[in-house]
């Protein structure tokens, strides 16, 4: 019935309730259809002024058809709530990943304090706890294969946890409307084996430290979600394109003209609204505290490389 991957025990439990309700629904809907069809056929008006019996009510029948269907409803309510409670309290030994949501990108920070873009890697067979916060408006982390979802609110942490059965790849959606690119605010959860996960983490950390600056910049351009608003081929998205801007003098709606150099890019990242390009809106979030110096340098070098 629900042809979605069941990636955890919890997902299977939710699906059991789902099926229970489905069977309940089919049963009662069948009663409606059969009764309706039968009555229309059997009691079709045959002639003018046909008489009908004066049946006005039947208390016993009414009590029965009110009480009997209510019993499965009670089952649904309790079963549904108990299962939900399982998804609320993460085990103490969970792997904790911090999630920051912003228009329109995700950032996943691992216990080593580093983040590597729109793919979340987690080990199979171990509970993973997400501690989530939004940097601007309300977003929502939705992982359908695990049947979990939670709003991500500014200035308040919300939590989710899940435990994957086995390695695989799972789609993440933003499920709370957040503006123009809401439907592109996607991510992946990649489930590895424990060893693969550790290897991946080490390798990524090493890559990030040793990468040449422009390459690191290129990686950050995708990982930090710059690409959702700034193109590198000259097309206008929400913000100005990066193509060929290095060394140009830009006009601003709220400041004196300035040349695009290292200091300008640094300021644009840390205080994006200090200088707003003429013709664009001041909608860029600040990356203050979210980028290391080396990463800022890398982004500047990357922009420089885009001729």
């Amino acid at each position: 019935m629900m042809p979605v991957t069941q990636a955890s025990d919890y997902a299977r439990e939710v699906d059991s309730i789902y099926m229970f309700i489905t069977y309940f629904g089919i049963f009662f809907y069948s009663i409606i259809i059969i009764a309706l069809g039968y009555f229309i056929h059997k009691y079709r008006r045959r002639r003018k002024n046909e008489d009908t019996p004066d049946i006005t009510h039947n208390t016993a029948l009414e009590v029965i058809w009110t009480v009997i269907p209510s019993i499965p409803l009670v089952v649904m309510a309790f079963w549904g709530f108990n299962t939900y409670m399982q998804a609320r309290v993460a085990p103490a030994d969970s792997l904790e990943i911090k999630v920051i949501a912003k228009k329109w990108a995700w950032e996943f920070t691992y216990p080593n304090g580093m983040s590597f873009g729109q793919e979340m890697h987690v080990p199979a067979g171990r509970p993973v706890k997400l501690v989530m916060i939004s940097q601007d408006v309300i977003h929502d982390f939705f992982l359908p294969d695990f049947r979990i979802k939670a709003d991500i609110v500014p200035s308040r942490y919300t939590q989710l946890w899940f435990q994957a059965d086995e390695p695989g790849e799972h789609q993440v959606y933003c499920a709370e409307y957040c503006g123009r690119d809401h439907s592109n605010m996607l991510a992946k959860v990649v489930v590895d084996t424990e060893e693969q996960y550790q290897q991946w983490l080490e390798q990524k950390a090493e890559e990030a430290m040793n990468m040449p600056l422009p390459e690191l910049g290129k990686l950050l351009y995708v990982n930090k979600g710059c690409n959702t608003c700034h193109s590198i081929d000259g097309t206008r998205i929400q913000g100005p394109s990066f193509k060929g801007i290095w060394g140009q003098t830009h006009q601003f709606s709220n400041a004196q003209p300035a040349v695009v150099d290292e200091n300008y890019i640094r300021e644009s990242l840390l205080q994006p609204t200090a200088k707003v390009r003429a013709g664009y809106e001041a909608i860029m979030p600040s990356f203050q505290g979210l980028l290391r110096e080396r990463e800022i340098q890398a982004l500047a070098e990357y922009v420089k490389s885009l001729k």
Partner: protein
Amino acid sequence: MAEVLTQRTPAAVHQPEGNFLTENPGLLNWMFTVDHKRIGLMYFWTIMTMFFVGGVLALALRTELLTPKTTIVSAEVYNQLFTLHGVIMTFLVLVPVIPATLGNFVLPMMLGAKDVAFPRLNLLSYYLYVFGALLAVGAIIGGGLDTGWTFYTPYSSTISGGVSIMTMGAFVLGFSSILTGVNFIATIHKLRAPGLSWYNMPLFVWGMYATAVIQVLATPVIGITMVLLLMERLFQVGIFDASLGGDPVLFQHFFWFYSHPVVYIMILPGMACISEVIPTFSHKPIFGYKAVAWSSVGIAVVSFFVWGHHMFVSGQSEFAGAIFSFLTFVVAIPSGVKVWNWLATMYRGSISLGAPMLYAIAFLLLFGIGGLTGLFLATVAVDVHLHDTYFIVAHFHYVMMGGTLIAFFAGLHYWWPKMYGRMYNEFWAAIGCLLVFLGFNGTFIPQFIVGSRGMPRRYYNYLDQFQFLHVASTIGSYVLGIGLVIMAATLIVPLFRKRYDAPNNPWGAASLEWTVSSPPPTHNFHHVPVVTHGPYDFKAARRLEQMESHS
């Protein structure tokens, strides 16, 4: 097809010297009328215009979704279109459609009254509606608005565009709705004809009463919410903005405290129409009158305590989630009871399949799906998965369109002869109903599947794997559109006929509005009617009619 003209004898077709349509002609006389029937018709045409706009927007949205990326519009435009579609359909169509049109038109007549209690307030309510509608539509055209009809903060309080004007529009529309509610409650309490006790009132009136209670009690809260949102935007007062010390989720509580009861402002009048049509077309009294009447009131009361089921994933406490889930199941029970009552009414009846009955049957089938899929969403663990997916979209369209609007169409076909004094073509009405039914299912059944597979709503772009179902849904929506056009044409074409050919009581109904001519005289009743039989005592009504036509 249906057996329509039981009473079409020369004596029964009482050609009145003047009726409310033709007496006092002229634009100004219409514009400043306080006649509830004229106001009802003005509401009807205005709301239908908005429904047309909202429908065209829906077709544009469905067309855009034919392909995952750009089909006809950009993401910005798409987001504005679904916002406008949502705002128009909820605030401008679904909320007022039955009370303000059918309710205004028939409620006083059902009570044997000459008008509603406050006719001038009624007219004011209409103009507030027009003004609010202009603000709402102007906000989109003037400033652009892409918040969705739910206006969640902090998105709505921080973006530029027409949000402020829209909130003012919603505020004004709220007032319009309150005035209608106040008017109906006072009318039902004080203007019933002699002999018309509470349990002798048609169930339509009970439904309107329950609706009016919700309108009066819930709407002020959306009013103040909109004021606070406006202050937030103008002065950053900080109530809903976390960065200023406020609470963004508080907005959701305020919003749903109104907007869940509003679902029942929409569906109770729908049930009210069905409760008239099914007994009349089964020629048999309603089964369990008191159960149906009190279940309306019960729904109205419980509807105030279930708003939190929109917020299972918003971070509210687990305890609150449990309570709201439980109460949501409680509110499901009276709705289910009504379905059994309608079915039992048909049992051993004498069922004629006129257009109103066809729509009533469509209602039972569609609302059944809408109600049963609601159970998934009341169950917390399952709702967490389905929340904000297409499953929700499909569910509330089954309740709102499959329920409210289909019931409205049933009521419209039922009272149309009374409103305009002309019969419509039953064959084309049936074709329209069939296409609407098939097209509607074609549109929304695929959305249940897409949603349960995890596709979120309000998505401009989607994964390729969902395309087949989206194409199916879009084709369904075109069929639905064609069905609605046929329905409209079937109703409008007879209006060009000069002669009134509708008898006073084409369906053999037993409530008071069918004792006056079609269309009714300006003051409804030449003599204050005295009620001597129940609203579903069709035999007594027939005896009375025969006595009158012989005398």
